């Protein structure tokens, strides 16, 4: 990956390394200044090896998770990268005719090729220009009767192969492409395996003019020129003259590939520059001039700026958009090169055309011609584009894994905190004595930080290594998802930057948590510490406001004093010393800012803690988060995060004020705490647990991303633990009632509850960690279960068709029934109850009567009557004027060419998070919302051929009267498919558009597999690719399952943290409670009773944590489910009890196993030894 969270990986790695080194230097500097503290701090590390190991294990888990997330992102990016590089090989830039085959002739003549050659001649950046023909045609081996229908067949001029000749054969030698003779063919390994052909065998090529036979000259790797196409990896290569003859295209080519010097190495900049130069060379300057003059009218520029403001400039690597550049260039006097390049972007041009049409229809009409003439050759920097996509998807994966991993990371950080709090507890007396002899509190903090930094370094290193290991395992799981997919395979890959980032980020957050923990534990009361009393005796004294203000002031002027000192040193001539001081001064700027901010916070803290100031602050924040429509304050940020955090602050503020009120009324402290904390926890639970759109009436539509998932999860778990821990006595009471009947268990239960309840902070923390882990696993388990609706109702996806096929457009079918009848009895028309046909046509379309003026991409699925009347796809929305059932609507579309149905992802989701990028570069239908299925008023749309594709001035209007279910045609639909009567084809295209999609319903569905195979054979002259829909569903389901497993495996790392936390707690408990255990043994506790008690303590936390996690997880999952259901028909909610049981069992059993060793140790404590050192 090159970017993470939008930041360059290099920058991130360098700054993190810099930061880490700076922190380490500061710590080292402080340590060397006061070596005795350093010595005191570090002596524990080698002395208690077992403890050191345990701490490092506890500390490393966050790093492990970060490393895994990064490695998975890297792997995905590098896998796609490899796939892209394999597919494009040495071709960096591809030039094609701007005209799509559907709308005219997309072949180029020798003259054009010469122009391209002339353009790059003498350009040292380019090392090869290769004109060729690439068509998908059936190839078969008569000897084995095996066929690959859509083989990518390439014809190349053998004398122009410079820069493209690095193909290797099976022996690893360079294949001799130049030596290919007439009548010979090179096939790639994929094709060779599928048709079982070897060197010297004869293979048959099926072309429009019939069959021809070739001898296999060599078998080469499936890469580069013979890397195959999007769907099929199989490819074959012939001399150009042969293929030209087969296709009847003498002297013609349909692709010109350009190779940038450097072979497979990618020079992004060179590639981009050459692509721009080539594009500029093949732009019609006259058309550009005309368009520039027309576009720069002030009215239009203003309108385009408004479009940009409305978000029209947005686009990803899949739909790049240059509207912003275009508008910028329009402000200049002449059409610049940048303007021309921007104008070649078809998405941009479609938006501009739409806007012009709204302003001046006649002008728009007159511009269609120059628009279509603008681009003479389409230049596609395909290698760069492919790598961008790889990068995008890789970053996306890391982002997703980071977001879901952040739960585990938080749990890991809590564990670090817990480890240090317990470490401090074990050393309370020692620390008390150290303080008593005169060390300051900050010295204690420093000591812990020194020790902690050493652990952190070890933990970050170990965590990184383990993270790499975990990612290898997870990638292996992911790999199984693509086992069947020949065009894409997962190969493990991790970058050095990722390792550096994981190590530094791990070290950084671990060290930070250590510092925070150190600060907390340093707040000890000396007497209480020495006497080993409980924390409840530590009164947290608040210094007066004046004292706090003084501290803030001291920190404000501190650096000034230091700077003054430095200046004086410089004046005194201490050159080197000054530099050293300045160096550390620079290093200390960030800690200074942080400390100052902290001191300022501490200044206000007593007021904030009293609660009431949080109410106005929270209110302002909550109101700031509202949608513009509901605006109360002068600004409105429409942010779900700001709104929810604001409301949470108000809740906490009210709760704390309530406590203050109860305090004034003289209630016991315990009671005050219980009432206020239960209120806070309960109110937070109620608020965060509301259905996502419950408050939309108040807030308006808010935008929120994945951070909301994290926020709501953490808030709900924290709130629930809050409530539980402040009402623990109720729980204890219930347990004691439950165990009253088991007399012998009573003392064990009593102790097993008493200890966790006495250390509430520690117990609460462990409980929170455990709940959080189960919570996330639970949500995943439930959400994974939702997808199964496809398996339950395959007709939703398949429309009741058993086999879905696609043929080569160059090899159209006149009548499929005739082909079947002529199949020598292999197939019979009676095998089928239904045969339907559909054509595809890329178009641009616009919804009439809405603000969005631009034409956007869409695809027409012109369907024959058989398809329209007999498909079983369900509609979610329908115009009641035309019918109220799916069948009625389809029948009307079949009968009336002016009607249409659109697919389910073209309408607004109306969901949580809004529709910021609604539609994107593809057509979206506004005003129809997925969450409101049923009746809607038909929507008019205008459709026209894409600009530059001929058919200038043609356009048609259609009324959309139905919306397809989201699952319909799931494995076949594009981003904006419009289904309609085939009459549209003639209206929009100059050329006849052939049917390419044939779908079959069988008389005997049990013969699906056999007939699927036979169809490919019988329709070989048409290059038919057939797929059984059931199989397709199963394959996709398997892929989904593998991804879910990957996620669960990743989340399982969090479980590891939860389990580890209980182990750490138990281990510490045994050490801390040696004497108590000795006394219990003296009182008559048996060894196994002690063991049972320790197991119970962990068990209580594990079971309670699981219960909270399951409850809250189900709650949130239910809300998410309702959100999904509002958009998608037919999703059902079910708790996967088996899965949940396994998760909980694993969690509880492993926690208990983890506790077993310390519990055993405890049970073996000899009373006489434990009591000896009273």
């Amino acid at each position, binding site marked *: 990956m090159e970017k993470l969270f939008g930041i360059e990986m290099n920058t991130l790695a360098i700054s993190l390394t810099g930061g880490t080194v700076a922190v380490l230097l500061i710590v080292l500097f402080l340590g060397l200044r006061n070596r005795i503290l350093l010595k005191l701090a570090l002596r524990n590390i080698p002395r208690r090896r077992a403890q050191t190991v345990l701490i490092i294990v506890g500390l490393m888990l966050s790093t492990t998770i970060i490393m895994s997330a990064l490695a998975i992102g890297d792997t995905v990016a590098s896998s796609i990268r490899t796939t892209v590089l394999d597919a494009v090989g040495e071709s960096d830039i591809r030039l094609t005719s701007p005209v799509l085959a559907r709308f005219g002739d997309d072949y180029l003549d020798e003259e054009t090729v010469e122009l391209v050659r002339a353009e790059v001649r003498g350009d040292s950046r380019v090392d090869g220009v290769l004109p060729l023909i690439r068509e998908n045609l059936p190839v078969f081996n008569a000897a084995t009767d095996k066929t690959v229908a859509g083989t990518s067949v390439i014809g190349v001029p053998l004398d122009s192969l410079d820069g493209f000749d690095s193909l290797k054969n099976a022996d690893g030698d360079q294949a001799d492409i130049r030596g290919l003779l007439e009548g010979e063919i090179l096939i790639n390994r994929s094709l060779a395996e599928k048709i079982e052909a070897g060197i010297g065998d004869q293979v048959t090529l099926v072309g429009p003019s019939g069959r021809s036979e070739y001898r296999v000259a060599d078998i080469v790797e499936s890469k580069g020129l013979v890397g195959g196409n999007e769907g099929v990896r199989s490819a074959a290569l012939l001399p150009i003259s042969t293929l030209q003859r087969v296709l009847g295209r003498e002297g013609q080519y349909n692709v010109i590939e350009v190779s940038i010097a450097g072979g497979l190495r990618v020079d992004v900049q060179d590639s981009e520059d050459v692509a721009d130069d080539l594009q500029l060379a093949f732009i019609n300057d006259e058309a550009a001039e005309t368009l520039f003059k027309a576009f720069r009218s002030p009215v239009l520029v203003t309108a385009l700026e408004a479009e940009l403001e409305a978000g029209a400039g947005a686009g990803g690597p899949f739909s790049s958009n240059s509207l912003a550049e275009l508008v910028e260039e329009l402000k200049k006097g002449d059409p610049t090169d940048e303007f021309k390049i921007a104008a070649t972007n078809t998405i941009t041009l479609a938006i501009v055309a739409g806007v012009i049409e709204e302003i001046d229809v006649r002008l728009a009409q007159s511009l269609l011609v120059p628009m279509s003439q603008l681009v003479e050759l389409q230049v596609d920097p395909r290698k760069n584009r492919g790598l961008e996509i790889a990068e995008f998807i890789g970053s996306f994966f890391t982002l997703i894994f980071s977001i879901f991993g952040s739960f585990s990371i938080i749990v890991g950080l809590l564990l670090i905190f817990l480890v240090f709090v317990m470490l401090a507890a074990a050393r309370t007396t020692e620390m008390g004595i150290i303080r008593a002899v005169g060390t300051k509190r900050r010295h204690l903090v420093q000591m812990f930080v020194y020790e902690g930094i050493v652990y952190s370094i070890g933990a970050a290193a170990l965590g990184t290594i383990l993270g790499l290991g975990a990612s290898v395992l997870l990638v292996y799981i992911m790999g199984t998802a693509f086992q069947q997919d020949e065009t894409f395979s997962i190969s493990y890959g991790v970058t050095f930057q990722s390792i550096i980032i994981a190590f530094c980020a791990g070290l950084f957050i671990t060290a930070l948590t250590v510092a925070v923990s150190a600060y907390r534990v340093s707040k000890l009361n000396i007497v209480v510490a020495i006497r080993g009393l409980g924390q409840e005796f530590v009164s947290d004294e608040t210094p007066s406001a004046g004292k706090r203000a003084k501290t803030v002031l001291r920190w404000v002027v501190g650096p000034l004093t230091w700077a003054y000192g430095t200046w004086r040193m410089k004046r005194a001539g201490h050159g080197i010393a000054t530099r050293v001081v300045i160096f550390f001064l620079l290093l200390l700027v960030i800690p200074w800012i942080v400390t100052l901010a902290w001191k300022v916070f501490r200044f206000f803290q007593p007021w904030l803690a009293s609660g009431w100031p949080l109410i106005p602050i929270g209110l302002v924040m909550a109101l700031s988060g509202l949608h513009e429509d509901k605006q109360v304050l002068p600004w409105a940020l429409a942010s779900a995060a700001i709104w929810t955090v604001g409301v949470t602050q108000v809740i906490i503020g009210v709760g704390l004020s309530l406590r203050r009120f109860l305090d004034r009324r003289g209630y016991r402290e315990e009671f005050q705490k219980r009432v206020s904390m239960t209120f806070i926890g309960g109110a937070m639970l109620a608020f965060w647990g509301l259905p996502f759109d419950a408050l939309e009436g108040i807030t308006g539509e808010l935008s929120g991303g994945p951070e909301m998932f994290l926020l709501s999860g953490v808030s709900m778990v924290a709130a629930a633990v809050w409530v539980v821990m402040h009402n623990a006595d109720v729980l204890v009471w219930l347990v004691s009632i439950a165990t009253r009947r088991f007399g012998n268990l009573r003392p064990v239960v009593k102790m097993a509850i008493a200890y966790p309840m006495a250390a509430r902070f520690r117990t609460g923390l462990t409980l929170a960690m455990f709940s959080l882990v189960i919570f996330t696993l639970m949500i995943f388990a439930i959400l994974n279960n939702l997808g199964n609706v496809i398996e339950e109702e395959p007709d939703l996806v398949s429309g009741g068709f058993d086999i879905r096929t696609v043929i080569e457009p160059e090899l159209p079918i006149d009548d499929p029934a005739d082909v079947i009848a002529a199949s020598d009895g292999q197939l019979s028309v009676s095998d089928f109850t239904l045969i339907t046909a559909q054509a595809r046509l890329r178009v641009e379309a616009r919804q009439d009567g809405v603000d969005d003026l631009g034409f956007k991409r869409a695809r027409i699925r012109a369907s024959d009557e058989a398809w329209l009347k007999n498909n079983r796809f369900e509609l979610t929305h329908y115009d009641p004027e035309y019918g109220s059932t799916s069948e009625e609507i389809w029948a009307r579309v079949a009968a009336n060419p002016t009607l249409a149905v659109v697919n389910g992802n073209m309408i607004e989701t109306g969901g949580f998070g809004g529709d910021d990028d609604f539609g994107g570069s593809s057509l979206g239908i506004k005003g129809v919302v997925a969450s409101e299925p049923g009746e809607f008023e038909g929507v008019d749309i205008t459709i026209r051929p894409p600009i530059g594709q001929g058919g200038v001035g043609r356009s048609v209007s259609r009324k959309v009267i139905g919306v397809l279910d989201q699952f319909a045609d799931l494995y076949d639909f594009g981003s904006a498919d419009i289904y309609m009567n085939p009459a549209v084809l003639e209206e929009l295209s100059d050329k006849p558009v052939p049917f390419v999609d044939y779908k079959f319903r069988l008389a005997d569905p049990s013969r699906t597999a056999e007939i699927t195979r036979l169809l490919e054979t019988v329709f070989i002259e048409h290059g038919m690719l057939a797929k059984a829909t059931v199989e397709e569903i199963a394959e996709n389901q398997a892929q989904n399952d593998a991804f879910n497993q990957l996620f669960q495996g990743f989340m399982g790392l969090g479980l590891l943290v939860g389990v580890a936390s209980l182990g750490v707690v138990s281990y510490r408990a045994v050490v801390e409670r040696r004497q108590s255990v000795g006394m219990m043994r003296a009182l008559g506790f*048996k060894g196994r009773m002690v063991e049972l008690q320790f197991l119970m303590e962990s068990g209580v936390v594990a079971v309670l944590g699981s219960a909270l996690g399951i409850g809250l997880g189900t709650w949130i999952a239910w809300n998410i489910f309702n959100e999904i259901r509002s958009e998608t028909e037919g999703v059902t909610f079910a708790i996967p009890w088996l899965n949940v049981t396994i998760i909980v069992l694993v969690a509880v059993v492993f926690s208990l196993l983890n506790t077993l060793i310390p519990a055993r140790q405890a049970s073996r404590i000899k009373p006489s030894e434990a*009591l000896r050192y009273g």
Partner: protein
Amino acid sequence: MRLKVVALFAARAGAWLRKGLCMDAGPIISATAVVKTYRTREVVVDALKHVDFEVMPGEMVAVMGPSGSGKTTLLNCMSGLDSIDSGDVSIAGQLLRTMSDDALSDYRATSMGFVFQAYNLLPVLSAQENVELPLMLAGTSSKEAQARAVEKLELVGLGDRTDHLPAELSGGQQQRVAIARALANDPAIVWGDELTGNLDSTNSAEIMELLTRLNKEQHQTFVIVTHSEEVGALADRIVRMNDGVIVDDGSRGDDYSASAGSYGTTAGAED
């Protein structure tokens, strides 16, 4: 269920023992040729060297001697808290080495009470809960356990401190709770290890007065390890140890020569 029967039986047995043994006047604790050696990696310490020792029912015995003389080891070995290397220890006629760890635990729960120098109260339980714990272990019902715990705390003068956590009590008060806990099951034997070691003289005197009163009234056997001559003076008998052997077992009419130890037959050996 099995545990409960054993515990009840043991509790009864304790009561019978106390009464029966008082009548029979045979020793309740008897140790013969007890040897205990502690080994660390480099050092071998012979803590008890062939010690013979007997305590009669209802007797209050003080074990005294310099630090490291083996007093605490003797107490630990006699009470079954620690194992012995050779010799025999029997309590109420039962050989400890024939008892399993579980049986010993049951025996401790029902028939023995312990009071230590560091009080060793369980810090997470209130005074009353600390006293209830041995009662629970002996299978007493919750209600009865509560009542008896309060009763015992009243006996030691802490009836108004039942809900306090150990950390909220003074040292003397904590030791009283420890005594109440030791007495909770009306054990036949109460073992005390430097039980006044952490207390001032007033508190020490009060505690010892309490113990002697209980000893007289309830005929319980007390074995107390102590440094304090004042505490020893209150005992029926003082056993003196030095270097792992008993140099004076303080028996009246015993013909044991007192010349071996520097302590000799000092004051306080008489009752």
